[in-house]
């Protein structure tokens, strides 16, 4: 279908975009890569009066090494994330998960910031941001503020960003040496969304797992941190048995739902099995 009529603003700076967002009121929509917004517009599930295109805002581009973290512009495409040397060296989990998103053409347009702001419960990148304790820098009419991933995702397709705020960059802390990573995704079809996904980072020292980070995709209204699994893995033996035992608590704190793709109890089963696989692979077991 053809989208409803709207006005178009091509923002040239973050300040410009925020001003347009304030002027546009609640029916204004930010456009980044458009890979979630365009289908929504075509299906007429949204009817904005003005669309504010941020894809040419240079302040929202670029990937920089900030010492203890990597700072990624919200407008960085999935394709750029996957292929960026800094990200692959310091935060490879993000590159791995991004490589599973959609298909090459969508990854050429879709952005990291758009995927986080969209907060789709089946999106792969919110769970990664949560597991890695990423911090979002957002700018609104009152200025700039930081939102930790743990406070960003509040409900289905809903974040704690205000309607007149724009996500400008994402800071991903470097975990340092000794960490292994894996993103495990269960999908029914090529190019499909995750029925369940598990993002795992594990720091191993010879026969021991020092610590682990585990984030779950599509196990509730937003991404879920599998804290019980992380606790069970702290200073655990780096063996298949201890990983399997820890993975049993993967569903603690989750609120899986049933839909066309899977029933809630099946999702819970997947979360346990895939947590075991993701942690084992990240730990090199």
């Amino acid at each position: 279908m053809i989208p409803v009529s709207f006005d178009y603003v091509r923002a040239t700076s973050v300040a410009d975009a925020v001003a347009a967002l304030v002027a546009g009121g609640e029916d204004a929509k930010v456009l980044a890569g458009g890979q979630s917004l365009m289908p929504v517009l075509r299906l007429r599930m949204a009817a904005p009066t003005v669309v504010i295109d941020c894809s040419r805002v240079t302040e929202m581009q670029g990937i920089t090494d900030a010492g203890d973290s990597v700072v990624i512009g919200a407008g960085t495409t999935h394709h750029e994330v996957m292929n960026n040397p800094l990200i692959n060296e310091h935060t490879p989990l993000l590159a791995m998960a991004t490589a599973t998103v959609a298909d090459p053409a969508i990854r050429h347009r879709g952005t990291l910031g758009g995927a986080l702001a969209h907060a789709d419960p089946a999106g792969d990148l919110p769970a990664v941001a949560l597991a890695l304790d990423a911090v979002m820098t957002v700018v609104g009419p009152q200025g700039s503020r930081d939102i930790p991933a743990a406070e960003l995702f509040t409900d289905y397709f809903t974040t704690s960003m205000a309607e007149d705020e724009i996500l400008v960059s994402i800071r991903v802390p470097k975990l340092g040496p000794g960490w292994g990573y894996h993103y495990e995704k269960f999908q029914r079809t090529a190019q499909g969304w995750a029925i369940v996904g598990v993002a795992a980072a594990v720091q191993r020292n010879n026969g021991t797992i020092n610590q682990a980070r585990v984030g779950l995709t599509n196990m509730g209204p937003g991404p879920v941190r599998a804290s019980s699994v992380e606790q069970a893995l702290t200073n655990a033996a780096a063996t298949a048995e201890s990983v399997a035992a820890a993975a049993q608590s993967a569903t603690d704190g989750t609120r899986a739902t049933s839909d066309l793709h899977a029933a809630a109890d099946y999702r819970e089963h997947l979360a346990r099995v895939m947590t075991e696989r993701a942690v084992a692979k990240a730990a090199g077991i």
Partner: protein
Amino acid sequence: MSHIPISVTVDGTTYDSEVEPRTLLVHWLREDIGRVGTVVGCDTSSCGACTVLLDGQSVKSCSVLAVQADGQSITTIQGLAEGEDNWHPVQTAFKECHGLQCGYCTPGMVLATVDLLGENPTPTEAEIREGLEGNLCRCTGYHNIVKSVQYASDLMSGGAR
């Protein structure tokens, strides 16, 4: 809603046009400048039938606004051949290997393949299937499409495979 001026180079020719902001790139290509080789197969950005190259990268032209392409350069299926008798090797390969039946997915498949082989000139079968995962075909079962891509890779790399 007011029209917005755009200037876009398509298959080597620059077009100055005025579009409604809501105009999808694929509709502009088809209805305003006659590039009807680029087709629409879905409303959900899933099928890839509308794939074109935007500044050299494959994109789904149903999922880009025409205004967003302002100042950029597009290659459609109609701009790939150098002339009637001088097809792009990917086009030749799809013909030789029967990589199509009804042909509806073919413009998108061919352009996605051009992009894939640009990034990875000698892909494995698995890499071909993954690289084309955004393009759906209802006819071929994909087998001959994979063969076509392999043959195109041979043609383009001078038989290096």
